[in-house]
């Protein structure tokens, strides 16, 4: 009986081969000139910086604080909505809204850490943050309705030559993410506070024995990461449309960027972000956009298999702990 | 030859943890491996066990090359190790931990369980077999670890600092246990230890490593009187501890 069915499969594949299976592989974009390619690559780099920005806070939370926050995307999305509503619907001037949102985010981070995240248990963390994710999304839906919102700020483009240009907002985001990620990296690696944060995360008991107020410092660090979410969110709404489920995508991107950069390597995250941007631009141009996710995520798996510790992490610093 | 390590070299970046090390263990022997901290003893163990890849050199066991073999296969061939930091499976009972070892050679649960019980008896923990490992104290944990390793029915046992953190009286009773393992079960043992009392009373032969190189080997008495060894490892005040 199964034999017959196997045959059916083969016939099916045979048939598909003739009509559509293979015509997808035609190399696209062969009619494009050099400056078009340069444009695409520049854009890829800027978008990549944006990926870096969106993942900056996650990178900090997951990499340095060892805390997988599944409410990350939702928090970012909530910031986007708040910014939109503050400026567009409630007509509060931007210079008042922005600090308010930052304060709000800082407070939210503090509150989350104090109330929800006391427990170190991995399962508990996942449940609480996933539940929080649901709560935030649905609160936003209820308060702001699920209607997609868009600041519709049209970004200026900076023309380098007549045909080659970069988006101004994108470029700002790029620079900002460079500053944030590299700055944070230095902060964590070089300053006393940074070291204190890392040590608390790695060994709570030992850190307290060093006289570090571990709870306090974690509270602050977590609140700080929420401040970052605030900044990223405000910048994102100027470029993208917010909708309640926007966060899911951002979260996936942040996963990919941070993990292939090597967890905890913040400046690596910036580099990887750019790499992701450029690769995805090239896939879109050469293979066609529909291959973007498939190839990109496939590549991600390969990277994990080949360099499990991240693209930018040297093997020397990775220990097998016994 | 039973176990033979030939010109084993391991590098970590620029650091040479093992430098052309040659070690031989004959069947039924207890061999000690000592040396200053960071000399490369644990590294050697990990290499024999397949956790590390040798940069160069070969390891033979019962005349078979095991250099690039996977750990579990090496275990199947008859080499089992214990780790430097006593750590058993935290979430399961002592019995099941030992059972896992017993599955190495015994296929059915009944047989394996029987053998596991024998081993638990052997180390004298039978009244605690239903305990979680986290409830045991350090001494019991070490015994449990030994039991699990023995349940795999090894021909060669590698013990890495199994005696660390024990009070001298406990060391004595543990030494007896290890000797029993060697004599009664005929298991050869390669042992790394800083508790000299144990190593001196147990081993037939001792190798001394320093900076990855073998600087001396011979009977315990020979080694402890070797001036190089005294200078590098034992220190002047040493003699008091062996009695």
């Amino acid at each position, binding site marked *: 009986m199964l034999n017959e069915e196997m045959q059916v499969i083969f016939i099916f594949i045979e048939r598909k081969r003739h009509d559509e299976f293979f015509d997808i592989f035609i190399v696209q974009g062969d009619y494009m000139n050099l400056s078009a390619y340069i444009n695409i690559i520049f854009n890829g780099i800027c978008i990549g910086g944006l990926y870096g920005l969106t993942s900056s806070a996650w990178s900090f939370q997951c990499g340095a604080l060892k805390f997988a926050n599944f409410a990350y995307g939702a928090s970012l999305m909530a910031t986007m909505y708040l910014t939109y509503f503050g400026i567009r619907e409630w007509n509060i001037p931007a210079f008042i809204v922005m600090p308010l949102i930052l304060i709000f985010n800082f407070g939210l981070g503090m509150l989350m850490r104090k109330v929800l995240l006391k427990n170190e248990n991995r399962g508990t963390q996942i449940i609480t943050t996933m539940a929080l994710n649901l709560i935030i999304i649905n609160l936003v*839906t209820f308060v702001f309705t699920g209607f997609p919102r868009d600041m519709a700020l049209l970004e200026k*483009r900076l023309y380098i030559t007549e045909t080659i240009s970069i988006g101004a907002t994108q470029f700002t985001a790029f620079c900002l993410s460079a500053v944030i990620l590299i700055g944070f990296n230095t902060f964590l690696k070089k300053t006393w506070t940074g070291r204190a944060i890392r040590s608390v995360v790695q060994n709570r008991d030992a850190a307290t024995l060093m006289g570090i107020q571990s709870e306090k410092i974690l509270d602050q660090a977590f609140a700080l990461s929420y401040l970052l979410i605030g900044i990223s969110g405000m910048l994102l709404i100027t470029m993208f449309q917010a909708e309640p489920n926007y966060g899911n995508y951002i979260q996936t991107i942040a996963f990919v960027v941070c993990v292939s950069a090597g967890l905890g390597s913040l400046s690596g995250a910036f580099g990887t972000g750019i790499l992701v941007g450029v690769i995805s631009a090239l896939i879109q141009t050469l293979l066609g956009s529909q291959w973007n996710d498939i190839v990109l995520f496939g590549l991600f798996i390969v990277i994990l298999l080949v360099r499990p510790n991240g693209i930018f992490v040297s093997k020397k610093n990775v220990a097998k702990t016994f | 030859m039973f176990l033979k390590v030939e010109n084993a070299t391991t590098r970590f970046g620029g650091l040479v943890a093992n430098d052309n090390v040659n070690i031989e263990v004959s069947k039924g022997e207890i061999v000690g491996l000592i040396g200053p901290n960071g000399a490369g003893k644990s590294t050697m163990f990990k290499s024999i066990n397949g956790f590390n890849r040798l940069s160069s050199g070969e390891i033979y066991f019962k005349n078979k090359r095991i250099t690039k073999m996977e750990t579990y296969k090496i275990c199947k061939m008859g080499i089992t190790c214990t780790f430097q930091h006593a750590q058993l499976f935290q979430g399961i009972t002592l019995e099941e931990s030992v059972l896992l070892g017993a599955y190495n050679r015994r296929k059915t649960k009944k047989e394996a369980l029987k053998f596991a019980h024998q081993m638990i008896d052997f180390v004298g923990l039978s009244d605690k077999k239903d305990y979680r490992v986290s409830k045991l104290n350090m001494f019991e944990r070490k015994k449990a670890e030994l039991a699990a390793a023995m349940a795999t029915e090894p021909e060669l046992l590698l013990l890495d600092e199994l005696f660390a953190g024990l009070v001298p009286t406990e060391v004595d009773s543990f030494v007896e246990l290890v000797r029993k393992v060697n004599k009664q079960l005929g298991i050869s043992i390669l042992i790394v230890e800083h508790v000299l009392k144990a190593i001196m009373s147990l081993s037939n032969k001792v190798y001394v490593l320093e900076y990855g190189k073998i600087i001396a080997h011979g009977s315990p008495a020979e080694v402890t009187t070797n001036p190089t060894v005294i200078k590098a490892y034992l220190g002047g005040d040493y003699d008091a501890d062996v009695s």
Partner: protein
Amino acid sequence: GCGNSDGKGTTETKSTETTEAGTGKEYEPYKISMITQLTGDNTFGGNEYKNGAELAIKQLGGEINGRKIEMVFADGPTQEATLAEFERLYNNGSRAFVSGYGCIADRAFASMVDEMEATYLSLAWDADLIQGESDYFFRIGANVTDFAKGAIEQAAKIGEDYLKIPADELKVAFVYNTRLAHVMEPMKEKMAELGIEAVVFEGYPTDTKDFVPIITKMQSAEYDIFIPLQGVTDGTPFQKKMFELNYTPPVTFGAGVYYDTPIFAELGDDITNGIMTQSYTTPYIADDAAAGIKEFREEYEQIYGHAPLTHALQAYGGVYIYAKALESLDPADWDDTKKVAAAVKALDLDFGELPWYWGVKFDELNSNTRANQFITNQWIDGKLECVYPENLKTRDAIVPWK
């Protein structure tokens, strides 16, 4: 009996006043149920559906032939939840249902409702939705194949009429969201049939945020008409990006789903002006073309604060079809689902008789044969004007723009 246990304080908007005197007997209010996505991924579409249906009941005055009718809404964020809610409402006595947004479980209902004897008016447009004869399941809306083929025909017509290019020489740039592959497939077929060449043919995953490569490709290619098939979340950034890159395609002919929504209008005249789009049924047609369309538009905007999407009109239409069927029955018979279903089946309404313009006449498999008239709109100075067909038209098309 046991079904009532959780019926209290729930979805049903309980009316405490008694039925007005003079209408004779007192009946239980008749419930029409809709399970739509009020939470989850498509909340905004779901709300649009809910608003449309609510408005219909409101405009009907909450009663027909003297018996109260009321809408029951339930939240169905996923297929599974939709089915669960369906069972719950059924258990509470609902026997008349209309699709919710996305029609996510309609295929399931297509095979289930006959056994359950509940009438289901489906707005799903899947080609293989209906798999056999049914007494209770009706497809009241359009068929995706008709819609897609119609759109390509329209594009070809624009090419011929305005650009003076015959179909077999027409070149198009076709960009679609892969989530709409079911619309793309018949379009592709139709293009092959007419000999239209797609110079750029790009599908992109819904999550795509970076459109520069696609736009650059379009910039580099030569074509006559740009046919986008996009959703709300990707259409907006796409259009913005085109504007930023200072690129305007010769003619844009969108195919439903996004280019006819008020959200698109928010982008401003600079972007929207001149863009044409084919829609299934849309609120933006001539006021006299369909009874009540003007009231619908105005009241909707007044109550819900934004201009209605075509989705709202669809749900509104669905409720109206129930209303028409119920009107033809004695309220006493409403509780007999067989009779209600038969009344739906017997409906014969011409184009323009219902606010949503489409007529109703079911074929032997219960598919609405009068839901195949599509409408072409053009954005002119911030307003969606109907430019085709002739009888619904509010303005003439301006092609090319300027």
